[in-house]
């Protein structure tokens, strides 16, 4: 491809190629603090290519593909090229990663112990992880938590944090504009802006930690804490994993070990402040 960059995020290396220079230039700026792995053999290839030859120039339209592709992935506008690259990396991980059990979850660490937060898109798990990362926790990832099936540790995957709609302003106020990417307006998921993790979180992206608390956050509801049965937790985590079935019995053993060892709660919260107080209290009580 005409333009390319190789990035390592946690244990995974990606080579992203693009027919256009703009998405690669944006990645180069936003991933400047990450290790320089130019020339390394990548685990995954992501390709941003025109939907047709003409569409490289005329109303440029991006088709995301790579080692693993989705047949019905909708083409995106070049203005959203950065998002296309990020989605492409997520897609390769979700469909192709085999070294760890992948949980669709955010994670932060304190004193070597990890808080894992899982939930649907819009649950607030990304925003919460991003903001906790500015409040004394180490940010480990907002999209995937990697469960090591041998040791039981959670490993970081600290990509850029993808923030949507009202979360953008909240986080931009907390971290400052210099750590924010360009505003990608009116994407299929609404407005999106990326946040760069703190440099220390990137520098420590090879250090995992043992999980000490699992939360199922839900933003936009009156404050409440609910206990969950282990069966429900197990079921929700298998649904939150893209490779549980593929990894077979080691995944069964690793996930049941996680569920029986790690205390868990569902938390509803109306605001960030309410969530911080709940997280602090539950961490104190349970972790």
């Amino acid at each position: 491809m005409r333009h390319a960059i190789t990035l390592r995020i946690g244990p995974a290396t990606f080579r992203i190629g693009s027919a256009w220079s703009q998405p690669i230039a944006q990645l180069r700026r936003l991933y400047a603090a990450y290790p320089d792995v130019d020339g390394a053999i990548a685990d995954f290839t992501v390709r941003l290519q025109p939907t047709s030859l003409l569409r490289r120039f005329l109303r440029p339209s991006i088709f995301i593909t790579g080692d693993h592709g989705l047949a019905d992935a909708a083409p995106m506008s070049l203005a959203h090229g950065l998002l296309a690259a990020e989605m492409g990396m997520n897609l390769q991980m979700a469909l192709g990663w085999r070294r760890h059990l992948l949980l669709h979850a955010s994670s932060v660490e304190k004193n070597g112990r990890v808080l894992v937060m899982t939930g649907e898109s819009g649950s607030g798990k990304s925003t919460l992880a991003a903001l906790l990362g500015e409040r004394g926790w180490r940010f480990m990832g907002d999209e995937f938590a990697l469960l090591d099936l041998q040791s039981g540790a959670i490993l970081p995957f600290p990509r850029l944090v993808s923030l949507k709609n009202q979360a953008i302003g909240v986080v931009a106020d907390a971290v400052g504009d210099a750590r924010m990417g360009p505003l990608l307006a009116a994407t299929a998921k609404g407005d999106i802006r990326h946040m760069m993790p703190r440099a220390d979180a990137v520098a420590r992206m090879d250090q995992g930690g043992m999980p000490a608390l699992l939360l199922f956050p839900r933003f936009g509801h009156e404050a409440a804490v609910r206990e969950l049965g282990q069966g429900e937790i197990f079921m929700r985590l298998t649904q939150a994993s893209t490779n549980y079935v593929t990894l077979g019995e080691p995944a069964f053993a690793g996930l049941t070990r996680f569920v029986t060892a790690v205390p868990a709660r569902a938390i509803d919260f109306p605001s960030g402040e309410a969530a911080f107080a709940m997280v602090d209290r539950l961490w104190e009580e349970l972790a």
Partner: protein
Amino acid sequence: MDATPRYRRDSSDAVASCTLDDLVLLYHRRSGQTHMVISPVPEILAQMADGAALSAGDVHDRLARDFDLGPQDEAMVEIAAHLDALVALGLVRRT
């Protein structure tokens, strides 16, 4: 001719199990599927662990040694239904 269906667990149908609160997870190695079951399914499977071909009545009698099953007719109907469900899942074979 004996028309009573008999059921058995084959050694190749071995499962890894894990108890979570009041339910039991079974990882079926041959299919790679994880099943979530509740009582009396784990108890029924445990009675069949020796691989013997058993009728629903045999399973009932084995269970009755450890559990109070209530009226035999009702318990038999329930056990037979569970055995057929387990056949459908591939955890038990009908012989």
